[in-house]
């Protein structure tokens, strides 16, 4: 039986001991792949080992140098430089986004004013977490531990002082190697992008703005005197006749986070003119000619559509005005009191003003979205006529009052401009916007008048962003 059993063993052994089967191709691929990985890992370990040794040597040399040169305190405390600025780098900012995996250097001078003292040994758990945040994929021994400890202590200091949890970001110092500087540069960029994106989310802002507006008319303007020459008086049909007035108001703007924003609000502005002077005599007769004279004595009969009563028709850039004169007042040439030598003849000036409430609807597009930014603006404004006054007055009194006939209660203007803005802080924005406005419809609805003034202004504004 024993022989039999041994024979079975031998039988199987003889057949199977030298049994060979060529394995499939993929087995060698897997083996060679594993071997290649091991070679890469061992090379990396070599480099890490050499770096650690070099760092240690350098730290010893640096320590020796600083001790030798009367340097007080830790070797790398406030003297850490970013390489990007010359200021001390403080590395801490409140935790807002936990998806940041690495590290940005920011410079915050405020940090230097904090003087809370703690023991470095305190809160080792937090220390370990901060190291992990600093170097999520690296071996911590690679950096000078002195630097890390100093900066972590600083972070803990400030956390304790402010009772706020901070994310320790990367540090900058002149001992970083080029690849770290690259990481820092790219992270500063990431941080700026993130801040920009946070800024860009749905924002509402309110503000104040104002501007002097220099107003003029285009050459295709049609005045009443073009159709009715009777009204040609002292109106000089030049573009300089409008007064330059200040427009100002409140702005409300909304941005969804893209480069576009939309703004409304309300402004108040006036279109006014001082068409000229007239001489008035109170000595006079009952007949008052519809006449408007300045430097000459010419008088004429008014047209049939002009009221023959004691009134004065004045033409301004905005239309005609019918001024009711006081009884007995007689129009004479300007400065004729000098001729007549009496106080009852005086010079009066015509003053005209129209006041509008403007509701803008402006779209802005950011061309450059930085602390100092550049944007384009364009839109339409709806203007509601609030004030329409013409008066004949001097410095002491108005002797006649009226209004411009046919002024449009509702006019529309378009705005187009360029703006420069400056972010004073996270919430405040200052802007200067040279803007051109054009009337889209005539300011006077009389068929024989077509006046569409244009204006240029330098709108200065201050907005607060929520």
């Amino acid at each position: 039986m024993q022989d039999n059993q041994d024979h079975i063993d031998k039988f199987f052994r003889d057949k199977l001991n030298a049994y060979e089967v060529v394995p499939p191709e993929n087995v060698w691929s897997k083996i060679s792949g594993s071997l290649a990985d091991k070679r890469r890992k061992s090379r990396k370990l070599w480099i890490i080992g050499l770096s650690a040794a070099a760092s240690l040597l350098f730290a010893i040399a640096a320590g020796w140098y600083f001790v030798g040169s009367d340097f007080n305190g830790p070797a790398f405390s406030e003297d850490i430089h970013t390489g990007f600025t010359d200021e001390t780098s403080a590395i801490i900012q409140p935790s807002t986004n936990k998806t940041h995996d690495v590290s940005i250097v920011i410079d915050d001078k405020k940090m230097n004013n904090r003087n809370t003292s703690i023991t470095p040994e305190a809160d080792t758990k937090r220390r370990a977490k901060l190291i992990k945040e600093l170097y999520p994929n690296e071996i911590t021994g690679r950096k000078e531990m002195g630097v890390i400890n100093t900066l972590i202590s600083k972070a803990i200091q400030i956390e304790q002082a402010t009772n706020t949890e901070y994310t320790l970001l990367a540090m900058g110092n002149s001992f970083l190697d080029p690849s770290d500087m690259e990481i820092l540069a790219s992270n500063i960029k990431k941080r700026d992008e993130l801040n920009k994106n946070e800024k860009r989310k749905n924002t509402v802002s309110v503000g104040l703005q104002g501007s002097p507006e220099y107003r003029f008319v285009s050459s295709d303007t049609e005045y009443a005197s073009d159709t009715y020459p009777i009204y040609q008086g002292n109106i000089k049909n030049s573009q300089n006749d409008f007064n330059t007035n200040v427009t100002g108001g409140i702005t409300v703007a909304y941005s969804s986070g893209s480069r576009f924003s939309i703004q409304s609000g309300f402004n108040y502005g006036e279109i006014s003119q001082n068409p000229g002077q007239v001489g008035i005599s109170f000595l006079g007769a009952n007949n008052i000619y519809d006449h408007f004279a300045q430097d000459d004595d010419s008088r004429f009969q008014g047209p049939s559509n002009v009221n023959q009563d004691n009134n004065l028709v004045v033409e301004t850039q905005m239309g005609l005005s019918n001024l009711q004169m006081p009884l007995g007042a007689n129009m004479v040439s300007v400065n004729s009191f000098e001729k007549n030598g009496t106080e009852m003849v005086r010079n009066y000036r015509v003053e005209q003003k129209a006041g509008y409430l403007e509701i803008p609807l402006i779209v802005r597009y950011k061309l450059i979205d930085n602390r100092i930014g550049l944007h384009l603006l364009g839109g339409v404004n709806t203007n509601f006529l609030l004030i329409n006054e013409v008066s004949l007055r001097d410095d002491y009194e108005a002797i006649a009052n009226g209004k411009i006939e046919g002024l449009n209660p509702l006019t529309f203007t378009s705005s187009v401009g360029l703006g420069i803005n400056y972010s004073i802080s996270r919430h405040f924005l200052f802007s200067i916007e040279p803007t051109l406005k054009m009337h889209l419809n005539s300011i006077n609805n009389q068929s024989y008048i077509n006046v569409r003034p244009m204006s240029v202004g330098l709108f200065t504004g201050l907005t607060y962003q929520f």
Partner: protein
Amino acid sequence: MENLEKLIQGCQEGKGKAHSELYKRFSPMLFGVCLRYSSDKAEAEDTLHEGFITIFKKIGQYAFKGSFEGWMRKVVVNHALEKYRKRSKMTTVEDMKVFDGTHSTEDSESDLNAQQLMELINELSPQYKLVFNLYAIDGYNHKEIANMLNISEGTSKSNLARARKILQEKMKDYGFIKSEYAR
């Protein structure tokens, strides 16, 4: 032999060419060993892969004393047993199917017999198969087997006896048996 020494040295120095040459030379034999111990072809391939990784990793420890082939076989067998230990904690593994690997010998009759013998062994229950492989083919003694499989020597002996009996009966059934085995 001299060629083998140079090859081993090359592997000890981590030369890729030496690694691939060594694999080419010994993988068919070692794969045969894996196939004997494994429950299926995929497991055999895994065992071979892990075995060679260990061989290349520890080849520096080989001091050119004793059989290099024997050393490699031991490494591979250890990996196979490791898999068995893991496997035995789980549910029963399917019987090994007929493998379709390429055969390196040219003698068709012996190949055929070898294949069929493999099938017979694979029909054994895992523990019997292991003990039979370790004792009858790879030359381990019961003490060593007891240590490797974490069983007693007595269990090892009884498993071996049982394995032999089953194989004998199967060989009779398949008509392999010669008169001297029939007794």
